[in-house]
């Protein structure tokens, strides 16, 4: 009996030695993610550390629950409030359920922002979107135009006809299409975010539009299916595939030449920007107000709208020069 008690004591004390508390620095910024062990967020943490190194007087607490639950994040938030951190930058698992806990954090003088996945406006000072609809709409056509100096026919392979995000992006794209002379959008088809249907729709585009120069797919399922269809047709390099995709899924198609470039957010930049914004707000060097600007270090400044949302930057373009650095991340 006594022996076992001693053992447990030893185990607890031993465990405690291993986790000696980190040294207090001037400002502690907590980067709270949906769950630990996700490549996208690990990359964001890398960006946060980069910002901390640049700022010098910042300690990053990278934390989150083990599974993507709101309850888990609330426990994390409570322990951060208890530690009296200076700022919390969170990618939320639930936009409503975290509000009471984050309100409490703000009541106790902690700067709270959300990034990537937002919290309802009353639960944070500002929200950082990785990009904006108009920037995305512009980028997807720009990537096609950059590789088509003489212009040509392009087609859009979207998700479902009712997909809100995709429809907004395509609308935004059509608004700026005049800036890219010679680019004609000849068709918009819907693959419903299903691999096989997207693949057949891409095949259909190629057979019905023999002069097709590019397929733009603003969905990660569609872009992979289109690249595969183009490759299988033996037209890799002839018909360009671009749009929004994940580096891990697109790496092979960039290697084969089916896709020269595609875009998506850069998680490293996102973590970096979230840290910079938290720092500036907590230091009082900026305030979150409508139409206000907050500095983001090397990324410039973010401008907030009426609901305190801001867009970080253009979607980040991935091509053969950087795909290998990102394909293992997400």
């Amino acid at each position, binding site marked *: *009996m006594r022996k076992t008690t001693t053992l447990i004591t030893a185990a607890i004390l031993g465990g405690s030695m291993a986790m000696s508390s980190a040294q207090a620095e001037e400002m502690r910024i907590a980067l709270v993610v949906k769950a630990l062990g996700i490549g996208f967020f690990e990359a964001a943490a890398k960006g946060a550390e980069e910002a901390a190194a640049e700022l010098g007087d910042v300690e990053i607490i990278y934390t989150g629950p*083990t599974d993507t639950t709101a309850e888990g994040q609330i426990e994390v938030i409570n322990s951060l*409030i208890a*530690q009296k951190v200076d700022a919390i930058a969170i990618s939320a698992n639930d936009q409503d359920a975290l509000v*009471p806990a984050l309100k409490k954090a703000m009541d106790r003088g902690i700067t709270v922002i959300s990034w990537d996945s937002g919290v309802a406006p009353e639960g944070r000072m500002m929200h950082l979107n990785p990009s904006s609809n108009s920037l995305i709409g512009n980028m997807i056509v720009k990537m096609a135009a950059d590789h088509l100096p003489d212009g040509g026919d392009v087609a859009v392979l979207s998700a479902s006809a009712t997909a809100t995000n995709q429809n907004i992006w395509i609308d935004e794209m059509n608004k700026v299409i005049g800036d890219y002379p010679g680019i004609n959008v000849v068709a918009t088809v819907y693959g419903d975010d299903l691999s096989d249907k997207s693949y057949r729709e891409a095949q259909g585009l190629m057979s019905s539009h023999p002069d097709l120069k590019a397929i733009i797919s603003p969905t990660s399922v569609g872009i992979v299916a289109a690249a595969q269809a183009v490759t299988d047709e033996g037209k890799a390099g002839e018909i360009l595939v671009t749009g929004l995709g994940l580096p891990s899924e697109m790496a092979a198609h960039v290697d084969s030449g089916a896709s020269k470039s595609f875009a998506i957010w850069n998680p490293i930049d996102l973590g970096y920007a979230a840290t910079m914004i938290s720092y500036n707000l907590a230091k009082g060097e900026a305030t979150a107000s409508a139409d206000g600007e907050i500095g983001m270090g090397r990324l410039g400044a973010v401008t907030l709208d009426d609901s305190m949302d801001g867009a970080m930057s253009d979607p980040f373009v991935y091509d053969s020069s950087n795909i290998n650095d990102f394909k293992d991340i997400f």
Partner: protein
Amino acid sequence: MSGLTSNNASVMPDRLRGQLFRIIASWEFLLLGVAILIFLFNVQASPYFLDPWNLSDATYNFTEKAMIAFAMALVIISGEIDLSVASIIALVSTCMGFAVQLGFDTPMLIGVAIIVGAACGAFNGFLVAIMGLPSIVVTIGTLSLFRGIAYIVLGDQAYSGYPKSFAYFGQGYVWWVITVEMVLFTVVALLFFLLLHLTSFGRSVKAIGNNPTAALFAGIRVPRVKFILFVLTGIMSAIAAICLTSRLGSTRPSIAVGWELEIVTMVVLGGVNILGGSGTIFGVFIAALVMGMVTFGLGLLNVPGIVMSIFIGLLLITVIALPIIIQRTRQRVAS
């Protein structure tokens, strides 16, 4: 395993104040020791631990789960188990959210919650106690069923817009740092203590867990007792759902996902025999504090959640193994 059961049969708890009684008594003493150690360790490890407001916030880590754990303890002592508790929370919370859309006020919401919780418990109870199906199978089924209904109703949507007065349960304070949930937790603990240890109903529960056939022959209405236990667990899940929903201010079908395992962990850590027959409310009470302090303490040190799970897992295996090892050692010494 068989060694343990045969030993249980030869030395009935609470009937003969023999060896096993003493082990259980010292067992809780040990757990209390662990709790004190963890407390002292936390005080030492983090300057933020010993702050009344921080400790008050930290109680939310376990109060809701513990309220269900007390009812679960009785179910497990009776030789059954209820794995559907977290799903009952989801269904109750969804029904409350639906009631809000219909314009119900706080007292009505409470009513809806208790009725739905009791109904879920009665459904489990009917299948287990009346139909005689194994509780582990039934409640794994209802685990999917109850949460499934919540998903059908809500999909990827959320209910919010709960009345202001409803926030009192999960966010309110009775006095200074004493939260409403702490008071509820203490009252529930006391009630279950009285029920298990000072009533004939409590003795029937233990008797059933030790030997249902003998209990039946002793005149105990076994199905009735079991049915009541499941309804009770349903009601406690409803109360936890009220607190949690009030704390979150919203409902999503994924609410409280995975809690059933944490609750069972709490019960087993509290010294309740997973095979039924013995256990105390005091033990579960201390176990709730231990788990709350471990998660909060490690959280303060920013230890990743997965390390916390490992720690809780080791703690659990240790406490399950300990009584068995002690018993074997004593047997060896005796022979």
